[in-house]
Protein backbone atom coordinates (compact mmCIF):
# COMPACT_ATOMS: atom_id res chain seq x y z
CA UNK A 1 0.00 0.00 0.00
CA UNK A 2 2.62 2.65 0.88
CA UNK A 3 4.35 1.91 -2.43
CA UNK A 4 1.11 2.54 -4.28
CA UNK A 5 0.53 5.75 -2.34
CA UNK A 6 3.97 6.94 -3.34
CA UNK A 7 3.28 6.15 -6.97
CA UNK A 8 0.08 8.21 -6.89
CA UNK A 9 2.00 11.16 -5.44
CA UNK A 10 4.67 10.68 -8.09
CA UNK A 11 2.02 10.71 -10.82
CA UNK A 12 0.58 13.93 -9.46
CA UNK A 13 3.98 15.60 -9.27
CA UNK A 14 4.60 14.53 -12.84
CA UNK A 15 1.22 15.96 -13.86
CA UNK A 16 1.90 19.27 -12.17
CA UNK A 17 5.32 19.52 -13.78
CA UNK A 18 4.02 18.83 -17.23
CA UNK A 19 1.28 21.41 -17.06
CA UNK A 20 -1.38 18.80 -16.82
CA UNK A 21 -4.14 19.07 -14.30
CA UNK A 22 -3.68 17.19 -11.08
CA UNK A 23 -6.07 14.40 -11.72
CA UNK A 24 -9.46 14.21 -10.10
CA UNK A 25 -11.37 11.03 -10.37
CA UNK A 26 -8.88 9.83 -12.96
CA UNK A 27 -10.16 12.19 -15.67
CA UNK A 28 -8.09 14.98 -17.10
CA UNK A 29 -9.59 18.35 -17.96
CA UNK A 30 -10.34 18.68 -21.67
CA UNK A 31 -8.34 21.37 -23.49
CA UNK A 32 -10.13 24.69 -23.59
CA UNK A 33 -9.64 27.58 -25.96
CA UNK A 34 -6.79 30.04 -25.44
CA UNK A 35 -7.61 33.55 -24.27
CA UNK A 36 -5.79 36.88 -23.87
CA UNK A 37 -5.19 39.13 -20.89
CA UNK A 38 -2.53 38.97 -18.24
CA UNK A 39 -4.07 40.80 -15.28
CA UNK A 40 -4.67 39.01 -12.04
CA UNK A 41 -8.26 37.87 -11.85
CA UNK A 42 -10.04 36.08 -9.11
CA UNK A 43 -13.24 34.11 -9.11
CA UNK A 44 -12.86 33.19 -12.76
CA UNK A 45 -12.59 29.41 -12.55
CA UNK A 46 -12.38 28.74 -16.27
CA UNK A 47 -9.15 30.72 -16.49
CA UNK A 48 -7.21 27.96 -14.79
CA UNK A 49 -8.44 25.24 -17.02
CA UNK A 50 -7.90 27.06 -20.29
CA UNK A 51 -4.40 28.24 -19.41
CA UNK A 52 -2.89 24.93 -18.55
CA UNK A 53 -4.40 22.42 -20.87
CA UNK A 54 -2.72 19.06 -21.33
CA UNK A 55 0.44 19.65 -23.32
CA UNK A 56 2.53 16.64 -22.65
CA UNK A 57 2.85 13.45 -24.56
CA UNK A 58 4.99 11.77 -21.94
CA UNK A 59 3.56 8.64 -20.44
CA UNK A 60 2.53 8.57 -16.82
CA UNK A 61 4.89 5.72 -16.08
CA UNK A 62 7.82 7.75 -17.34
CA UNK A 63 6.82 10.79 -15.31
CA UNK A 64 6.51 8.67 -12.20
CA UNK A 65 9.98 7.32 -12.96
CA UNK A 66 11.30 10.88 -13.23
CA UNK A 67 9.86 11.85 -9.84
CA UNK A 68 11.24 8.67 -8.29
CA UNK A 69 14.69 9.28 -9.74
CA UNK A 70 14.68 12.85 -8.43
CA UNK A 71 13.90 11.62 -4.93
CA UNK A 72 17.19 9.65 -4.83
CA UNK A 73 19.48 12.58 -3.92
CA UNK A 74 16.97 13.79 -1.33
CA UNK A 75 16.97 10.38 0.35
CA UNK A 76 20.77 10.16 0.18
CA UNK A 77 21.16 13.61 1.76
CA UNK A 78 18.64 12.97 4.56
CA UNK A 79 17.59 9.46 5.56
CA UNK A 80 20.87 7.86 4.46
CA UNK A 81 22.98 10.30 6.46
CA UNK A 82 22.80 8.47 9.84
CA UNK A 83 24.33 5.46 8.06
CA UNK A 84 27.08 7.54 6.44
CA UNK A 85 27.64 9.07 9.86
CA UNK A 86 28.59 5.64 11.26
CA UNK A 87 31.21 4.72 8.64
CA UNK A 88 34.60 5.14 10.35
CA UNK A 89 36.55 5.55 7.10
CA UNK A 90 38.52 8.53 5.83
CA UNK A 91 38.54 9.28 2.11
CA UNK A 92 41.47 11.39 0.93
CA UNK A 93 41.87 12.61 4.51
CA UNK A 94 38.22 13.70 4.80
CA UNK A 95 35.71 12.03 7.10
CA UNK A 96 33.24 9.75 5.31
CA UNK A 97 30.20 11.86 6.30
CA UNK A 98 31.60 14.99 4.64
CA UNK A 99 32.66 12.96 1.59
CA UNK A 100 29.16 11.42 1.34
CA UNK A 101 27.34 14.74 1.49
CA UNK A 102 29.67 16.42 -1.01
CA UNK A 103 29.41 13.38 -3.31
CA UNK A 104 25.61 13.63 -3.45
CA UNK A 105 25.63 17.39 -3.83
CA UNK A 106 27.86 16.87 -6.88
CA UNK A 107 25.76 13.97 -8.22
CA UNK A 108 22.48 15.91 -7.96
CA UNK A 109 23.00 17.91 -11.19
CA UNK A 110 23.66 14.63 -13.02
CA UNK A 111 20.50 13.07 -11.55
CA UNK A 112 18.38 16.12 -12.41
CA UNK A 113 19.81 16.16 -15.93
CA UNK A 114 18.79 12.51 -16.30
CA UNK A 115 15.33 13.45 -15.02
CA UNK A 116 15.03 16.17 -17.65
CA UNK A 117 16.10 13.76 -20.39
CA UNK A 118 13.56 11.24 -19.18
CA UNK A 119 10.82 13.87 -19.35
CA UNK A 120 11.84 15.20 -22.74
CA UNK A 121 11.84 11.88 -24.55
Amino acid at each position, binding site marked *: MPARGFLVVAYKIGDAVNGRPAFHGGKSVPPLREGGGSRLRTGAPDDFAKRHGPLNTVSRRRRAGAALLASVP*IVMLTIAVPFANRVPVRIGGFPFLLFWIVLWV*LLTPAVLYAVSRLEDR
Partner: protein
Amino acid sequence: MRPEVIALAIVAAVIFATIVFALLIVGRVKMDPQEYIVGSRSFGALLLWILLAGEIYTSFTFLGAAGWAYGRGAPAFYILAYGTVAYTIGYFLLPALWRVGKAHGLLTLPDFFIVRYESKALGVTVAVLQFLLVVPYVTLQLTGLQILLSIAGYGRFNATVAVGTAFIAIALFVFTAGLRGTAWASVIKDTSVLLAVIFAGIILPIHFFGSPAAMVSHVLAVQPHWMTLARGTLPQGEIWYISTVLLSGIGFFMGPANAPAIYSARNESTLRRNMVLMPLYQIVLLLVFFAGFTALAVMPGLKGPAADQSFMLLLQRTYPAWVLGLIAAAGSLAALLPASALLLGAASVVSKNVLGDLFNVATGDRARTWATRALVLLIAFLALALWIFEKRSLVELLLLYYNGITQLMPGVLFALLWPRVSAWAVAAGIAGGELVALYLAHQNAGPWGVNPGFFALAINVALCTAVALAFPKQRPAVAASL
Protein backbone atom coordinates in the same frame (compact mmCIF):
# COMPACT_ATOMS: atom_id res chain seq x y z
CA MET B 1 48.47 54.83 5.48
CA ARG B 2 46.71 53.24 8.41
CA PRO B 3 45.41 49.73 7.65
CA GLU B 4 41.79 50.42 8.61
CA VAL B 5 41.67 53.32 6.16
CA ILE B 6 42.98 51.13 3.31
CA ALA B 7 40.59 48.26 4.06
CA LEU B 8 37.49 50.41 4.50
CA ALA B 9 38.30 52.52 1.45
CA ILE B 10 38.43 49.32 -0.63
CA VAL B 11 35.07 48.17 0.78
CA ALA B 12 33.46 51.53 0.01
CA ALA B 13 34.97 51.63 -3.50
CA VAL B 14 33.75 48.13 -4.37
CA ILE B 15 30.19 48.80 -3.14
CA PHE B 16 30.11 52.11 -5.02
CA ALA B 17 31.49 50.54 -8.21
CA THR B 18 28.91 47.74 -8.06
CA ILE B 19 26.01 50.18 -7.75
CA VAL B 20 27.31 52.36 -10.60
CA PHE B 21 27.91 49.31 -12.82
CA ALA B 22 24.37 48.02 -12.32
CA LEU B 23 22.78 51.45 -12.79
CA LEU B 24 24.68 51.94 -16.06
CA ILE B 25 23.59 48.57 -17.43
CA VAL B 26 19.96 48.92 -16.41
CA GLY B 27 19.90 52.43 -17.84
CA ARG B 28 16.58 54.17 -18.20
CA VAL B 29 14.08 51.35 -18.42
CA LYS B 30 10.48 52.43 -18.32
CA MET B 31 9.19 51.30 -14.93
CA ASP B 32 5.84 49.64 -14.42
CA PRO B 33 5.13 47.00 -11.74
CA GLN B 34 5.83 44.15 -14.16
CA GLU B 35 9.28 45.55 -14.94
CA TYR B 36 10.10 46.86 -11.47
CA ILE B 37 9.09 43.75 -9.51
CA VAL B 38 9.51 40.81 -11.91
CA GLY B 39 11.84 42.22 -14.61
CA SER B 40 9.12 41.90 -17.31
CA ARG B 41 9.51 38.08 -17.12
CA SER B 42 12.40 38.33 -19.53
CA PHE B 43 15.48 36.94 -17.75
CA GLY B 44 17.43 34.29 -19.63
CA ALA B 45 19.21 31.34 -18.02
CA LEU B 46 22.42 33.20 -17.17
CA LEU B 47 20.90 36.34 -15.66
CA LEU B 48 18.44 34.20 -13.71
CA TRP B 49 21.30 32.05 -12.41
CA ILE B 50 23.08 35.17 -11.22
CA LEU B 51 19.93 36.56 -9.61
CA LEU B 52 19.12 33.29 -7.83
CA ALA B 53 22.70 32.83 -6.65
CA GLY B 54 22.74 36.49 -5.68
CA GLU B 55 19.66 36.10 -3.50
CA ILE B 56 20.59 32.77 -1.96
CA TYR B 57 24.25 33.17 -1.00
CA THR B 58 24.08 35.77 1.74
CA SER B 59 26.27 36.93 4.59
CA PHE B 60 24.90 33.97 6.56
CA THR B 61 26.57 31.73 3.99
CA PHE B 62 29.71 33.77 4.20
CA LEU B 63 30.03 34.16 7.98
CA GLY B 64 27.37 31.92 9.48
CA ALA B 65 28.46 28.71 7.74
CA ALA B 66 32.09 29.30 8.74
CA GLY B 67 30.92 30.20 12.24
CA TRP B 68 29.02 26.94 12.56
CA ALA B 69 31.95 24.92 11.23
CA TYR B 70 34.09 26.70 13.81
CA GLY B 71 31.66 26.53 16.71
CA ARG B 72 29.64 23.35 16.14
CA GLY B 73 31.35 21.12 13.56
CA ALA B 74 29.26 18.51 11.74
CA PRO B 75 25.81 20.14 12.26
CA ALA B 76 27.05 22.85 9.87
CA PHE B 77 26.95 20.26 7.05
CA TYR B 78 23.17 20.69 6.95
CA ILE B 79 23.77 24.00 5.12
CA LEU B 80 25.49 22.10 2.30
CA ALA B 81 22.60 19.63 2.00
CA TYR B 82 19.44 21.72 2.31
CA GLY B 83 20.08 23.90 -0.72
CA THR B 84 20.58 20.78 -2.82
CA VAL B 85 17.30 19.32 -1.54
CA ALA B 86 15.62 22.64 -2.30
CA TYR B 87 16.85 22.64 -5.92
CA THR B 88 15.62 19.09 -6.45
CA ILE B 89 12.16 20.11 -5.19
CA GLY B 90 12.47 23.36 -7.16
CA TYR B 91 13.06 21.47 -10.39
CA PHE B 92 9.42 20.35 -10.19
CA LEU B 93 7.90 23.23 -8.25
CA LEU B 94 9.32 26.31 -9.96
CA PRO B 95 8.07 25.69 -13.52
CA ALA B 96 4.57 25.07 -12.13
CA LEU B 97 4.66 28.33 -10.15
CA TRP B 98 6.04 30.16 -13.17
CA ARG B 99 3.23 28.91 -15.43
CA VAL B 100 0.56 30.20 -13.08
CA GLY B 101 2.45 33.47 -12.66
CA LYS B 102 2.74 33.96 -16.41
CA ALA B 103 -0.88 33.07 -17.12
CA HIS B 104 -2.29 35.44 -14.51
CA GLY B 105 0.33 38.21 -14.48
CA LEU B 106 1.24 37.47 -10.87
CA LEU B 107 3.81 39.55 -8.96
CA THR B 108 4.05 37.86 -5.55
CA LEU B 109 3.51 34.56 -3.76
CA PRO B 110 0.30 35.82 -2.05
CA ASP B 111 -1.04 36.43 -5.58
CA PHE B 112 -0.65 32.71 -6.21
CA PHE B 113 -2.74 31.92 -3.13
CA ILE B 114 -5.38 34.42 -4.26
CA VAL B 115 -5.88 32.92 -7.72
CA ARG B 116 -5.76 29.32 -6.62
CA TYR B 117 -7.88 29.55 -3.48
CA GLU B 118 -10.07 32.43 -4.66
CA SER B 119 -9.62 34.21 -1.36
CA LYS B 120 -8.17 37.67 -0.93
CA ALA B 121 -8.20 37.21 2.84
CA LEU B 122 -5.82 34.26 2.53
CA GLY B 123 -3.58 36.28 0.21
CA VAL B 124 -3.43 39.15 2.68
CA THR B 125 -2.61 36.70 5.51
CA VAL B 126 0.26 35.21 3.53
CA ALA B 127 1.47 38.72 2.62
CA VAL B 128 1.52 39.87 6.25
CA LEU B 129 3.36 36.70 7.32
CA GLN B 130 5.99 37.16 4.62
CA PHE B 131 6.43 40.78 5.58
CA LEU B 132 6.81 40.02 9.31
CA LEU B 133 9.22 37.15 8.70
CA VAL B 134 11.47 39.07 6.34
CA VAL B 135 12.43 41.63 8.98
CA PRO B 136 14.62 39.25 11.04
CA TYR B 137 16.21 38.06 7.80
CA VAL B 138 17.18 41.60 6.78
CA THR B 139 18.34 42.30 10.33
CA LEU B 140 20.62 39.28 10.11
CA GLN B 141 22.27 40.71 7.00
CA LEU B 142 22.88 43.97 8.86
CA THR B 143 24.60 42.14 11.70
CA GLY B 144 26.74 40.28 9.17
CA LEU B 145 27.66 43.61 7.61
CA GLN B 146 28.54 45.02 11.02
CA ILE B 147 30.92 42.12 11.74
CA LEU B 148 32.66 42.61 8.38
CA LEU B 149 32.98 46.37 8.67
CA SER B 150 34.25 46.33 12.26
CA ILE B 151 36.89 43.72 11.37
CA ALA B 152 37.87 45.69 8.26
CA GLY B 153 38.13 48.73 10.55
CA TYR B 154 40.47 46.76 12.86
CA GLY B 155 38.01 47.37 15.70
CA ARG B 156 39.03 51.02 15.91
CA PHE B 157 35.69 52.61 15.22
CA ASN B 158 32.01 52.06 15.73
CA ALA B 159 30.60 50.36 12.64
CA THR B 160 26.94 51.30 13.25
CA VAL B 161 27.07 54.48 11.17
CA ALA B 162 28.89 52.73 8.31
CA VAL B 163 26.32 49.92 8.31
CA GLY B 164 23.47 52.43 8.20
CA THR B 165 25.08 54.37 5.35
CA ALA B 166 25.77 51.28 3.24
CA PHE B 167 22.27 49.96 3.83
CA ILE B 168 20.53 53.21 2.88
CA ALA B 169 22.73 53.41 -0.23
CA ILE B 170 21.60 49.96 -1.32
CA ALA B 171 17.95 50.78 -0.53
CA LEU B 172 18.19 53.87 -2.75
CA PHE B 173 19.74 51.68 -5.43
CA VAL B 174 16.79 49.25 -5.39
CA PHE B 175 14.47 52.24 -5.27
CA THR B 176 15.92 53.28 -8.64
CA ALA B 177 16.73 50.07 -10.45
CA GLY B 178 14.25 47.39 -9.28
CA LEU B 179 14.78 43.67 -9.75
CA ARG B 180 16.85 44.03 -12.92
CA GLY B 181 19.32 46.20 -11.00
CA THR B 182 19.67 43.60 -8.26
CA ALA B 183 20.30 40.91 -10.86
CA TRP B 184 23.05 42.84 -12.62
CA ALA B 185 24.70 43.98 -9.38
CA SER B 186 24.82 40.31 -8.41
CA VAL B 187 27.27 39.71 -11.26
CA ILE B 188 29.96 41.58 -9.33
CA LYS B 189 28.78 40.20 -6.00
CA ASP B 190 28.93 36.56 -7.06
CA THR B 191 32.28 36.91 -8.80
CA SER B 192 33.91 38.59 -5.83
CA VAL B 193 32.34 36.21 -3.28
CA LEU B 194 33.60 33.27 -5.33
CA LEU B 195 37.15 34.66 -5.38
CA ALA B 196 37.02 35.52 -1.67
CA VAL B 197 35.78 32.08 -0.71
CA ILE B 198 38.42 30.32 -2.84
CA PHE B 199 41.02 32.43 -1.08
CA ALA B 200 39.67 31.76 2.41
CA GLY B 201 38.87 28.09 1.83
CA ILE B 202 41.95 26.98 -0.15
CA ILE B 203 44.78 29.50 0.28
CA LEU B 204 44.21 29.81 4.03
CA PRO B 205 44.49 26.05 4.82
CA ILE B 206 47.48 25.76 2.44
CA HIS B 207 49.15 28.69 4.17
CA PHE B 208 48.90 27.07 7.61
CA PHE B 209 48.81 23.31 6.99
CA GLY B 210 49.95 22.63 3.42
CA SER B 211 46.55 21.39 2.16
CA PRO B 212 42.86 21.32 3.13
CA ALA B 213 43.08 17.57 3.86
CA ALA B 214 46.02 18.11 6.22
CA MET B 215 44.04 20.85 7.93
CA VAL B 216 41.06 18.52 8.42
CA SER B 217 43.35 15.82 9.82
CA HIS B 218 44.75 18.37 12.24
CA VAL B 219 41.27 19.34 13.46
CA LEU B 220 40.29 15.68 13.86
CA ALA B 221 43.51 14.89 15.75
CA VAL B 222 42.52 17.47 18.36
CA GLN B 223 38.75 16.80 18.34
CA PRO B 224 38.07 13.33 16.84
CA HIS B 225 34.26 13.71 16.76
CA TRP B 226 34.13 17.24 15.36
CA MET B 227 32.92 16.10 11.92
CA THR B 228 30.52 13.41 13.12
CA LEU B 229 26.90 14.05 14.04
CA ALA B 230 25.66 13.17 17.51
CA ARG B 231 23.63 9.95 17.55
CA GLY B 232 19.86 9.82 17.05
CA THR B 233 17.76 12.19 19.10
CA LEU B 234 20.58 14.05 20.86
CA PRO B 235 20.61 17.86 20.45
CA GLN B 236 21.79 18.69 16.93
CA GLY B 237 22.09 14.97 16.25
CA GLU B 238 21.04 12.86 13.29
CA ILE B 239 17.28 13.38 13.71
CA TRP B 240 17.80 17.11 14.05
CA TYR B 241 19.97 17.07 10.91
CA ILE B 242 17.40 15.22 8.79
CA SER B 243 14.46 17.33 9.93
CA THR B 244 16.38 20.59 9.53
CA VAL B 245 17.55 19.72 6.01
CA LEU B 246 13.98 18.83 5.03
CA LEU B 247 12.44 21.88 6.71
CA SER B 248 14.87 24.36 5.16
CA GLY B 249 14.78 22.63 1.79
CA ILE B 250 10.98 22.68 1.74
CA GLY B 251 10.73 26.30 2.87
CA PHE B 252 13.51 27.50 0.59
CA PHE B 253 11.42 29.26 -2.06
CA MET B 254 8.71 30.68 0.21
CA GLY B 255 10.34 34.02 1.10
CA PRO B 256 8.98 37.26 -0.40
CA ALA B 257 12.06 37.64 -2.62
CA ASN B 258 11.75 34.18 -4.22
CA ALA B 259 8.45 34.42 -6.10
CA PRO B 260 9.48 37.55 -8.08
CA ALA B 261 12.77 35.84 -9.02
CA ILE B 262 10.87 32.79 -10.24
CA TYR B 263 8.40 34.90 -12.22
CA SER B 264 11.27 36.86 -13.79
CA ALA B 265 12.35 33.82 -15.83
CA ARG B 266 11.81 33.98 -19.58
CA ASN B 267 10.37 30.47 -19.75
CA GLU B 268 10.07 27.17 -17.93
CA SER B 269 13.17 25.53 -19.30
CA THR B 270 15.25 28.49 -18.06
CA LEU B 271 14.11 27.60 -14.54
CA ARG B 272 14.69 23.87 -15.00
CA ARG B 273 18.21 24.35 -16.32
CA ASN B 274 18.98 26.59 -13.37
CA MET B 275 17.75 24.02 -10.89
CA VAL B 276 19.88 21.33 -12.56
CA LEU B 277 23.05 23.43 -12.29
CA MET B 278 22.46 25.23 -9.00
CA PRO B 279 23.73 22.42 -6.69
CA LEU B 280 27.23 22.90 -8.15
CA TYR B 281 27.29 26.32 -6.53
CA GLN B 282 26.87 24.64 -3.14
CA ILE B 283 30.51 23.57 -3.30
CA VAL B 284 31.30 27.16 -2.36
CA LEU B 285 29.97 26.20 1.07
CA LEU B 286 32.51 23.41 1.42
CA LEU B 287 35.24 26.02 1.01
CA VAL B 288 33.55 28.19 3.63
CA PHE B 289 33.63 25.22 6.01
CA PHE B 290 37.35 24.83 5.29
CA ALA B 291 37.85 28.47 6.22
CA GLY B 292 35.98 27.92 9.50
CA PHE B 293 37.89 24.73 10.32
CA THR B 294 41.22 26.43 9.59
CA ALA B 295 40.31 29.24 11.96
CA LEU B 296 39.41 26.62 14.58
CA ALA B 297 42.74 24.84 14.16
CA VAL B 298 44.82 28.02 14.27
CA MET B 299 43.03 30.13 16.88
CA PRO B 300 40.46 28.20 18.92
CA GLY B 301 38.58 29.80 21.79
CA LEU B 302 35.98 32.15 20.24
CA LYS B 303 32.69 31.45 21.98
CA GLY B 304 29.04 31.86 20.96
CA PRO B 305 28.25 34.55 18.38
CA ALA B 306 31.95 35.50 18.20
CA ALA B 307 32.48 32.28 16.19
CA ASP B 308 30.90 34.09 13.21
CA GLN B 309 33.98 36.32 13.09
CA SER B 310 36.42 33.38 13.07
CA PHE B 311 37.98 33.31 9.61
CA MET B 312 37.73 37.07 9.09
CA LEU B 313 39.76 37.57 12.27
CA LEU B 314 42.30 35.04 11.03
CA LEU B 315 42.57 36.90 7.71
CA GLN B 316 42.98 40.16 9.59
CA ARG B 317 45.82 38.66 11.61
CA THR B 318 47.58 36.99 8.69
CA TYR B 319 47.30 39.17 5.61
CA PRO B 320 47.84 42.84 4.68
CA ALA B 321 45.01 45.37 4.81
CA TRP B 322 44.24 45.33 1.09
CA VAL B 323 43.54 41.57 1.10
CA LEU B 324 41.29 41.98 4.13
CA GLY B 325 39.59 44.92 2.41
CA LEU B 326 38.83 42.95 -0.76
CA ILE B 327 37.40 40.00 1.15
CA ALA B 328 35.37 42.23 3.47
CA ALA B 329 34.05 44.00 0.35
CA ALA B 330 32.89 40.68 -1.13
CA GLY B 331 31.22 39.80 2.17
CA SER B 332 29.55 43.21 2.37
CA LEU B 333 28.05 42.72 -1.09
CA ALA B 334 26.87 39.28 0.09
CA ALA B 335 25.00 41.05 2.88
CA LEU B 336 23.72 44.05 0.92
CA LEU B 337 22.40 42.51 -2.29
CA PRO B 338 20.27 39.76 -0.74
CA ALA B 339 19.00 42.44 1.64
CA SER B 340 18.09 44.58 -1.37
CA ALA B 341 16.17 41.68 -2.96
CA LEU B 342 14.38 41.08 0.35
CA LEU B 343 13.45 44.75 0.65
CA LEU B 344 12.05 44.72 -2.86
CA GLY B 345 10.15 41.48 -2.26
CA ALA B 346 8.66 42.67 1.01
CA ALA B 347 7.73 46.05 -0.50
CA SER B 348 6.05 44.34 -3.48
CA VAL B 349 4.03 42.11 -1.18
CA VAL B 350 2.84 45.05 0.90
CA SER B 351 2.05 47.32 -2.06
CA LYS B 352 0.31 44.64 -4.14
CA ASN B 353 -1.43 42.49 -1.54
CA VAL B 354 -1.99 44.79 1.44
CA LEU B 355 -2.39 48.25 -0.11
CA GLY B 356 -3.86 47.04 -3.39
CA ASP B 357 -5.97 44.00 -2.53
CA LEU B 358 -6.99 44.90 1.02
CA PHE B 359 -7.38 48.69 0.91
CA ASN B 360 -7.78 49.15 -2.84
CA VAL B 361 -5.07 51.83 -2.85
CA ALA B 362 -2.42 52.35 -5.54
CA THR B 363 -3.84 49.88 -8.04
CA GLY B 364 -2.78 51.72 -11.21
CA ASP B 365 0.59 50.89 -12.79
CA ARG B 366 2.20 54.23 -12.01
CA ALA B 367 0.84 54.46 -8.48
CA ARG B 368 1.84 50.88 -7.69
CA THR B 369 5.43 51.37 -8.87
CA TRP B 370 5.77 54.45 -6.69
CA ALA B 371 4.08 52.81 -3.72
CA THR B 372 6.51 49.90 -3.99
CA ARG B 373 9.45 52.28 -4.20
CA ALA B 374 8.32 54.25 -1.16
CA LEU B 375 7.84 51.00 0.75
CA VAL B 376 11.38 49.84 -0.11
CA LEU B 377 12.72 52.87 1.76
CA LEU B 378 10.19 52.58 4.58
CA ILE B 379 10.98 48.91 5.22
CA ALA B 380 14.71 49.68 5.05
CA PHE B 381 14.30 52.25 7.81
CA LEU B 382 12.15 49.88 9.87
CA ALA B 383 14.73 47.09 9.62
CA LEU B 384 17.52 49.50 10.49
CA ALA B 385 15.65 50.80 13.53
CA LEU B 386 14.88 47.28 14.71
CA TRP B 387 18.51 46.30 14.21
CA ILE B 388 19.77 49.23 16.28
CA PHE B 389 17.47 48.47 19.21
CA GLU B 390 17.37 44.68 19.03
CA LYS B 391 20.79 43.33 18.15
CA ARG B 392 20.64 40.19 20.24
CA SER B 393 19.27 36.71 19.68
CA LEU B 394 19.66 36.74 15.89
CA VAL B 395 20.10 33.00 15.64
CA GLU B 396 16.72 32.66 17.32
CA LEU B 397 15.30 35.13 14.80
CA LEU B 398 16.74 33.19 11.87
CA LEU B 399 15.27 29.94 13.18
CA LEU B 400 11.99 31.80 13.53
CA TYR B 401 12.26 32.85 9.88
CA TYR B 402 12.60 29.32 8.51
CA ASN B 403 10.15 27.84 11.01
CA GLY B 404 7.61 30.46 10.04
CA ILE B 405 8.14 30.78 6.29
CA THR B 406 8.04 27.02 5.63
CA GLN B 407 4.45 26.93 6.93
CA LEU B 408 3.42 28.47 3.58
CA MET B 409 4.63 25.47 1.59
CA PRO B 410 1.71 23.06 2.23
CA GLY B 411 -0.64 25.66 0.73
CA VAL B 412 1.52 25.86 -2.39
CA LEU B 413 1.96 22.10 -2.80
CA PHE B 414 -1.71 21.30 -2.18
CA ALA B 415 -2.62 24.00 -4.70
CA LEU B 416 -0.79 22.02 -7.35
CA LEU B 417 -1.59 18.49 -6.24
CA TRP B 418 -4.93 18.28 -4.47
CA PRO B 419 -8.04 20.02 -5.85
CA ARG B 420 -10.08 19.30 -2.75
CA VAL B 421 -8.14 21.77 -0.56
CA SER B 422 -9.93 25.07 0.12
CA ALA B 423 -8.77 28.42 1.49
CA TRP B 424 -10.10 27.45 4.93
CA ALA B 425 -8.04 24.24 4.99
CA VAL B 426 -4.86 26.13 4.11
CA ALA B 427 -5.65 28.86 6.63
CA ALA B 428 -6.21 26.27 9.37
CA GLY B 429 -2.89 24.62 8.52
CA ILE B 430 -0.98 27.91 8.49
CA ALA B 431 -2.56 29.06 11.77
CA GLY B 432 -1.81 25.78 13.53
CA GLY B 433 1.69 25.54 12.09
CA GLU B 434 2.64 29.11 13.00
CA LEU B 435 1.30 28.79 16.55
CA VAL B 436 3.20 25.54 17.17
CA ALA B 437 6.34 27.01 15.55
CA LEU B 438 6.11 30.07 17.76
CA TYR B 439 5.59 28.02 20.91
CA LEU B 440 8.41 25.57 20.13
CA ALA B 441 10.79 28.33 19.00
CA HIS B 442 10.33 29.74 22.49
CA GLN B 443 11.31 26.34 23.91
CA ASN B 444 14.13 26.12 21.35
CA ALA B 445 13.66 22.38 20.81
CA GLY B 446 11.10 20.02 19.35
CA PRO B 447 10.18 16.58 20.67
CA TRP B 448 12.55 13.66 19.98
CA GLY B 449 15.32 15.95 18.78
CA VAL B 450 13.22 17.02 15.77
CA ASN B 451 13.66 20.57 14.50
CA PRO B 452 10.74 22.57 16.00
CA GLY B 453 9.77 24.03 12.63
CA PHE B 454 9.56 20.57 11.11
CA PHE B 455 7.25 19.43 13.90
CA ALA B 456 5.11 22.52 13.26
CA LEU B 457 5.07 21.67 9.55
CA ALA B 458 3.73 18.20 10.33
CA ILE B 459 0.93 19.74 12.43
CA ASN B 460 0.24 22.15 9.57
CA VAL B 461 -0.10 19.36 6.97
CA ALA B 462 -2.26 17.27 9.33
CA LEU B 463 -4.65 20.17 10.03
CA CYS B 464 -4.86 21.13 6.37
CA THR B 465 -5.57 17.52 5.34
CA ALA B 466 -8.20 17.07 8.05
CA VAL B 467 -10.10 20.22 7.08
CA ALA B 468 -9.83 19.36 3.37
CA LEU B 469 -11.30 15.90 4.01
CA ALA B 470 -14.09 17.26 6.21
CA PHE B 471 -14.97 20.30 4.07
CA PRO B 472 -13.85 19.78 0.47
CA LYS B 473 -13.66 22.69 -1.92
CA GLN B 474 -16.88 23.04 -3.86
CA ARG B 475 -15.63 23.17 -7.42
CA PRO B 476 -12.69 20.78 -7.64
CA ALA B 477 -12.39 21.07 -11.42
CA VAL B 478 -11.24 24.67 -11.00
CA ALA B 479 -8.55 23.82 -8.55
CA ALA B 480 -7.37 20.84 -10.48
CA SER B 481 -6.18 22.63 -13.51
CA LEU B 482 -3.01 24.26 -12.27
